[in-house]
């Protein structure tokens, strides 16, 4: 395992914003795999999205083989900000891009996955990034995080919409090569999946190191660092108890109405900063216009 130290997180907002602005298409050929009327678009545009994103990473890292793949193969340590920006750009293209664009970026990721193989030094198990079981874990953690973050800090979904979100998102896993029949397609199935996979999950040293970096990234602008504390606390507060115990984090204080508002305000400020970056407002407007024309149709 490499012991290379992590690079500073300077430019996190700027680079994420640039990636996002470039990922939201100008003239999509079709509505993509979700479309303006989808629950997925709502979840992706929710104020709680940054919390969902950080929680996803916290969850995903708890699978030792998924974590080993990231730790041993990606340029995660050398350029963590670039990696995060690329990940959010990928999500934005799959969500808002047309079908051809989404398929193209997914194929590119699948091609990279072919090369990502190895042996996890903690469990001694071999892994392959293209393994549907690992891809399914990463997918389930993402979907579950969208629901959890929205429930606590965003606009909570009605039960039927939550089911619709899980169902809609199955295509995202399929694009990466997960067989349709093993992908949870409802909240109940998602919960069953988590119960089944739980024995495989644990916090490895690589996960602990990665996440302690993410929870307090060095090199952030001081103002962003201040807001990041709220995002971090919010993300931990949305984790299941067992995940908090795996990491050994102190049990988070219950989220009072005041604290929830404070975190939402911090999310609002962060969003405003994000919107201030070049191209982000225009990207948001492109999404809003498509959503609006879909509403009229």
């Amino acid at each position, binding site marked *: 395992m490499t012991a290379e130290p992590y690079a500073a997180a300077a430019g996190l907002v700027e680079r994420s914003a640039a990636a996002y602005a470039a990922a939201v298409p100008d003239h999509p050929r079709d509505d993509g795999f979700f479309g303006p009327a989808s629950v997925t678009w709502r979840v992706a545009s929710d104020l709680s999205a940054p919390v969902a994103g950080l929680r996803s990473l916290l969850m995903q890292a708890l699978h030792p083989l998924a974590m080993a793949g990231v730790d041993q193969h990606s340029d995660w340590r050398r350029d963590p900000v670039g990696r995060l920006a690329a990940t959010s750009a990928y999500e934005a293209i799959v969500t808002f891009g047309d079908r051809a664009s989404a398929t193209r970026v997914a194929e590119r990721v699948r091609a990279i996955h072919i090369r990502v193989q190895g042996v996890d030094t903690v469990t001694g198990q071999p892994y392959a990034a293209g393994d549907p079981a690992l891809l399914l874990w990463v997918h389930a953690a993402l979907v579950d995080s969208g629901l959890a973050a929205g429930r606590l800090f965003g606009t909570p979904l009605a039960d039927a919409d939550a089911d619709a979100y899980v169902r809609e998102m199955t295509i995202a896993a399929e694009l990466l090569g997960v067989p349709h029949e093993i992908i949870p397609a409802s909240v109940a199935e998602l919960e069953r999946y988590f119960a089944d996979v739980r024995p495989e999950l644990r916090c490895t040293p690589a996960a602990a190191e990665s996440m302690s970096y993410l929870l307090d990234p060095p090199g952030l602008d*001081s*103002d962003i660092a201040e807001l990041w504390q709220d995002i971090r606390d919010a993300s931990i507060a949305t984790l299941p108890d067992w995940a908090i115990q795996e990491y050994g984090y102190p049990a988070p204080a219950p989220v009072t109405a005041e604290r929830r508002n404070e975190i939402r305000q*911090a999310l609002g*400020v962060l969003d405003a900063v994000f*919107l*201030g970056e070049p191209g982000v407002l225009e990207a948001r*407007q492109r999404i809003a216009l498509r959503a609006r024309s879909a509403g009229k149709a």
Partner: protein
Amino acid sequence: MAALSAASIAGLVVARRRVGSLRMERGMTALRLAARGGARYASNAPRLFATAGEHRQQLRNDLALQTAEDVATTLGTMKGVLMKMGQMASYVDDGLTPAARRTLSRLQDSVPPMSPELAAQVVTEELGLPPEQAFATWDLVPIAAASIGQVHRAITLDGRAVAVKVQYPGIAETIEADLGNVALLRRMLKITAPSQDVDALLAELRERITEELDYRAEARNQQLFARYYEGHPTIHVPGIVEELSTRRLVTSDLADGARFAELASWSQAERDLAGETIYRFVFRSLYEMHAFNGDPHPGNYLFHGGGRVTFLDFGLVKHFTDDELRPLVEMVRHLCVENDPSAFRAAMVEAGFLRPDTPLPTDMIIEHMALFYDTVRERGPRTMTGEYASAVSRRFFDFRSPLAAYAAIPRSYVILQRINLGLFALLGELSATADWRCIAEEIWPFVHGPACTPMGAAEATWRAARRDAGHAGRAVR
């Protein structure tokens, strides 16, 4: 009244902080944050009562807000508050990074306008009648964005062409809710100010922003200025239609004219005249009305040639009491007319600018303060420059000088920084030349000098007519 609070924040910081430039620098991150985030939100220059079609801002009507819920989504969770703080931060010269300044300077109206239906709904709620009944003509499409509203052209039932500023529905409640939940704001401000000041800052912030949410204060102030300057040869303030102005509506006479940016192509003689009018407006208002319009934003003027200027936006007006104004007048008098340094120093102490026990020689104090009076200490034509404006602005908040340990800017005077940031910067941009001292002597209540320009003569005629008509301008004793 937004700008006052930011200036007040900065002022309080300076007032309470004796040393510690490091903390001051860090402290600006909160404002920088607000500026960065708020910039895209903050309204643009032609934010008020812009008029003719050619000035029409590009409003994203295709993204129009359709419900009060849309307003809450767009401007809630601090965005409305940030927008206001961004405006304030834009008035605090120091501490903003060039990047923040750039962002602020290309402010875009990223908040979509209201749909015609939503704007009509506000008018109906405010006036009890839909706009097509409350007005003879109502333009469905807004002509300009305001920070928390938009401006529609209309013609009243009795035929007045007016500009109607309509506030976003629910924006007041949304902003008040965010201001009521102070945990995050407290943390943002804690970086700026010592902990004992945070609650005072919060109170100030809430008070100022809340004031701005009620358009009635703005309408009252504008009407006050409109009445005072009625018939003035070069100063024009659009009158308010009181019966069509409410908490969320301001209806004023429609005005048209050239924008500040267009002045660049005008002759220097025209620019000098415009500068003279703005200068007269600021100091006549201060000395005679005891009022200061603290929003000397370039977007708040319309120019008509021959020095005639229309003044817009009275959302930030500070009214001085006699007690507040007297020491300021004394300071000018002792420094510029009587040339009495120790009396000047005593007036500074009386105003609260200087601690009584300050162990510094009067010479040093004079040397520090003289810069503020530089344009009026001597007779003769003088050209305003951007460098002078910057120097004055820097010195106002200069806490590194030896004087800083003993100096303070009392809250009621913080707004005067707007003279530095607004008036002098504006005149500097115009490269306006005039005998400012001579004009000041016309206006100073302790001199009442004779007219020294043709505009001064015209103004004297107006003042005489005004007196005959029984208007009593408030005079400073």
